[in-house]
Structures are given as C-alpha cells and as structure tokens.
C-alpha cells in the first residue's frame, strides 16, 4: 500500500474527512511499545536540543546504559512476574543476599586479589542463591497459596535480615575480586561497549525472545490472563509460577554479580527502593498489574525513561526538588497516554 492509498471503507474510524494514514504508521502506532517509545524519543530529542554539546555527546548513551544495566536485568524478571499477575517486592533484598553470600566466599578465598576460579564460584553462589530464594517464594505463592505481595514482602525483609546477620550489618571489605571489577565492572567489549551493558542486553534479548516466541512465554501470558482457563487447557500453572519466581530470583542474583563488579561492595543499605524502581519501569513499559499484558521491550523503554529524565535534568541544572516533580509528572503522563491509546483501540 502506498502513502496516498485511501483508507479501507469498512474501517469506521477512517472516514474520508481524515487525512489518510500510511498503514506502516498505523501498525506502528498500534504496537504496544510505540507510545512509550515516543515519550522516550521526545525526551531524548528535547535534551539533545537543549544541551547539544553535552547530552548524548559528552555524556553518552553508554553511560546512561551502564547506570541502567542492573535495573534492566531486574526489570526483565519483574516483567514475567507482573505478566502472571504477581509482584516481587523482594528483588533488592535478594540482590543484597546473593551479593553478601558471594562476597563471603570471595573474602575467604583471596579477597580483592582473588583469581578467576574464585570469581567463577562466587558468581555461581550468587546465581544459585537468587534462584533458590526465588523458587522458594514461587513455591509459597503457587502451592501454599500465600498472596505474592505478602510472600515477597516477607522475603524482602527476611533476605535483607539474613544478609545483615551474616555481615553484622556492615558491608564487608574485600568483597569483590579486583579482576572482576576491572574486567566486568569497568571493562569494555572491543574497547567500546561496557561489559555491564553487554550482559544486561544479552539477558534482555534472551528473555525477551523467550517471552515473545516460546511456549514458556505463551504460558506466562495465558496464566496471567486467566489462571483457571490455563489450568483447564492442561498447563501446569503451579509449576510455571515456581519457574517464573525462580527466574526473577536468578536475575536478581545476576544483578548482584553486576553490582559487585561495578560498585565493588555489597551496599546492604542501598537497595531498599529497587523494587519500586523496577516495578515502575515495567508498568511504564505497558505491563498491566492485573496480569496478561506486558513485554520486555516495553520494560527496556520503561527503565530508560526515568534514567534519561534524571540525567537530562541534572545536565540542564534543574534544582533537585523540581527534578522529582518532573519525573513524577512524566511517569503518570506516559502511562496515561498508553491507557488513552488502549481505550481508543478497545472501543474502536
């Protein structure tokens, strides 16, 4: 179809009084992520125009991406949980617990000077901790029928408490191998792309594709839309829920390894609002808290909107209190735009 072709007659919305819209544009506008992406693009364009010599030049996209990398990894897991109509408030604490356990191993096996062997084992410990904690929470949600809000709120406190018991509440010294920090934390692939960004986008790509194109992904949407229907068509809903919560735990474990590599410490007290940040990003990306809707691409956009906004406002020299106001307004406006589009589509 060309740009000049008239709209199909059977489409009531497209009367002849309206200018014809190219079909590729209409398809794009109907895509779930298009509008939030539009908001992101608008923000980037605005800051680039306002500070052309600074935004996306001196402060480049890799810096924004590096700072967003860990939240992105957590966000991917959270997308799955929210699509099955669940919630995970424990991500930040699970990250801390994984970081602390892996740090304890590092401390007793070479500390800051330890080699790749220690790094490998401590990484495995972090991933396993996250996976097991997540699976336990999943089991409580699916089999014990405790609401996910309660399970993960309990998990939020318990994981942080466990981490404080192990460390006495202080970030231990020598928690990370210097090799890990230099290579992964501050190293770059081909001298260009920070490894943290490579890892985050690798995880995003894999789990984005799994969600969009595999049976595992379809089950996730089906359970979120209607768990009873999913059960009746023969999906093992309980087992799937355990897997979804285990996945978000695993990704929290991965996040902890990235955190240790980048910040070089466990930051026990620095993760109390990770859950809100991540849930906000997922919802901003178009996911429904009632389940059945959402996408990893949307979450990527949802992670980047606040990141771009806060860096852009600092670069423009906006006072901190106004930054918080602006971020709040944009968050609500972006979700409102998305709802507005959905209403239009559902009624039309």
């Amino acid at each position, binding site marked *: 179809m060309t740009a000049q072709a008239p709209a199909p007659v059977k489409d009531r919305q497209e009367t002849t009084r309206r200018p014809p819209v190219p079909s590729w544009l209409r398809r794009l506008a109907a895509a779930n992520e298009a509008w939030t992406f539009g908001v992101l693009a608008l923000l980037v364009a605005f800051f680039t125009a306002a*500070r052309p010599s*600074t*935004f996306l030049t*001196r*402060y480049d996209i890799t*810096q*924004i991406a*590096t*700072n967003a990398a*860990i*939240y992105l990894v957590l966000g991917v897991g959270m997308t799955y949980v929210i699509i099955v109509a669940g919630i995970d408030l424990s991500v930040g604490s699970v990250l801390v617990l994984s970081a602390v356990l892996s740090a304890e191993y590092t401390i007793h096996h070479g500390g800051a000077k330890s080699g790749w062997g220690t790094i490998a084992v401590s990484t495995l410990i972090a991933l396993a901790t996250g996976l097991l904690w997540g699976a336990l929470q999943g089991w409580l949600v699916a089999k014990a029928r405790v609401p996910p809000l309660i399970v993960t709120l309990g998990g939020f406190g318990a994981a942080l408490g466990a981490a*404080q018991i192990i460390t*006495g*509440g*202080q*970030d231990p*010294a020598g928690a990370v191998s210097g090799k890990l920090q230099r290579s992964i934390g*501050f190293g770059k692939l081909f001298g260009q792309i*920070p490894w943290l960004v490579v890892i985050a986008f690798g995880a995003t790509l894999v789990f984005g594709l799994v969600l969009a194109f595999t049976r595992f992904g379809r089950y996730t949407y089906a359970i979120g839309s209607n768990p009873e229907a999913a059960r009746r068509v023969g999906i093992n809903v309980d087992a799937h829920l355990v897997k979804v919560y285990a996945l978000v735990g695993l990704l929290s474990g991965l996040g902890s390894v990235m955190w240790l590599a*980048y*910040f*070089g*410490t466990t*930051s026990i*007290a*620095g*993760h*109390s*609002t990770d859950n809100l940040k991540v849930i906000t990003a997922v919802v901003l990306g178009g996911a429904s808290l009632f389940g059945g809707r959402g996408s990893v691409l949307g979450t990527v956009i949802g992670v980047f909107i606040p*990141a771009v906004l*806060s*860096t*852009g406002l*600092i*670069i*423009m*020299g906006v*006072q*901190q209190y106004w930054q918080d106001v602006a971020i709040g307004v944009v968050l609500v406006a972006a979700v409102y735009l998305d709802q507005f589009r959905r209403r239009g589509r559902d009624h039309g």
Partner: protein
Amino acid sequence: MRPTNPTGRSTAFAGFCAVLALTAATTAGCGGDSGGSGSKSLDLITGVKSDPFYITMTCAAQQEAKKRGVKLTVNGSAQWDVAVQRPIIDSVAATHPGGLLISPVDTAALTPSLQQIQNAGTKVVLVDTEVSDASIGVSRISSDNEAGGRTAAKSLAQLMGDKGSAIVISVKPGVSTTDARIKGFNEEMKANHPGITLLPVLYDNDLPATAASQIQSTLAAHPDLGGVFAGNTNTAQGISTGLQAAGKQGKVKVAAFDAEPDEITALTNGTLDVLVAQDPGAIGRQGVDQALAAIDKKKVTAHIGTDMVAITKANMDQPDIKKFFYQAAC
C-alpha cells in the same frame, strides 16, 4: 587526665574538669576517681547497633564507665527506626537506671517515652542526635556538624587548588546533621574560596546507583568539576564508582564524612581523598561523665560540641590522626 589525648577532646575535657573543680567541693569526676558513683547504673541506647560510629562510641563509654566503677548496659536499634528504638527505651525504663545515654533516631516521636523515663528520675543525656523538646535531657553532646562541613570545604578546596566547580551530593533533605554539614560547607566555600563555583545540592536517597549517575551527569554538564562532598558512605561509594567509570578518578577529589573501616580502605586506595572524622569516642566518654555528674548533683554542661578532624592520605599515618579511625569492634 588521660594520657595522649587528641587536641580537640583534651581541651573540651579540661574545660569540663575545670567546671567541676570550681563548682564541686569533692574530688570526684576527673582523673578516673570512682568515688561516689559506685552503685549507680547507666544505660546506653545507640541509633544503629552495627554502625562503627556507634560501636566506637559504645567502646569508649564502656571504658569510661569501667574506670568510674559504674555498670553500663548497652542496647541499640537494629535499624534507624523509631518503631525499633521505642520498645528498647520502654524496656530500659522498666529497670529504672540512674542515667540513660541515648541517640534518639527521631527529633519528635520519642519525646513522650523520654519524658516518662526522665520524670521517673533517670538522668537523660542525649548523645550524637537530639530531640527538639528542650526539656529533655540534662546534657546534649554531639559533633559540631557545621564546623565539620567547614573542615571538609577547607580540605577539599586545598586539594582542588582553589579552582573549578564543587558539588554536594547528600542523602536526603531535612536531616539536621547533614543539613548542618552542607550549610557549613557552603558557607566556607562562599566566604573563603571565591575561585570555586558551587553547584546546587543533589540528593540520592541513600542509593549508590543514583549517586553514580548523578556524578556522571554533573561531570558532563561541568567539565571543570574538581571536588565532591559526599553525604555518607553509600553516597561516596556511588560517587567513586561513577568517577571511575567516567575515567575521572583522582582528578575529581571526593570528601566524605566519618572514618569507618571501609572508608579508610577507600582513602588508602585513592577512591576517597578527604575524610572528616567525628570523635564518637569523646561523645561516649563525655556522655558517661555528664550522666554521673547529674546523678551526683554536680554541675552539668548543657551543650557540648566535639571537634572533627580532616584525614587525608598525607596525614593518615600520624598517630594523633589514626586514633580518629572508627572501630568495627571493641
């Protein structure tokens, strides 16, 4: 008088002893004499049990209590939370101690509990933090935070060569101690270092990740950035990570408050450049002395401000600086 006192504390202590000597006919109070207060019991409730600042304060208070021959029971909240600290206060109140040293975690919410314990006859001494109600406590002992902020500004300006931009990244607005530090820092910079451009304060809500991205954005907007004053340890960690990722570590000087073990490590590694150490040990010792003075009906100093010292890589090995390092355990 104890041997090898740090300069700041010894003057404060000497003043206190002089006051005692003037007003009290007895010899009790100074020089480790335990006379007159042997049967008194004291309690200490800190803000956060696991914080090296409070650990150092507790250790010093325990030493002083032992020296004066009184029993000191130590308690502390697991978190900086009114709901956690209040039950501790109430359980201590039930034992009717002679004196209570407390670091209240809220300026208003704990007032009724403290009022009650005070009315029951316990002498309350506020250490480190305060409550707004002036009728609470016979004595208030804390670091002079504004002076600390000025100390930080002086050291940082010196390292920056008195030029470039400087910024404060703090935890959150509305905290009396950090607000006073920022006030002192800004005043000193404006008054005595006109070559330095002061940027507006940023707040990271105690999240290192936020501090990292804030410092990178600031660097982009102000390439002449030469110094940062970090509100606390978490913030300092985020800042140094952000600087390292931007390849600016060492070029931008970072000042932080306190001298916790991991901050000392950071100073050695060059991720931090200035530490402004408080003197929690002096606060603890003075707390015990003031409480005992109140119990013995001797002259009590209502407000005591302890000194702070700037630690840099250059002076960190000197013994009179080293004793300001906080302890992780007694």
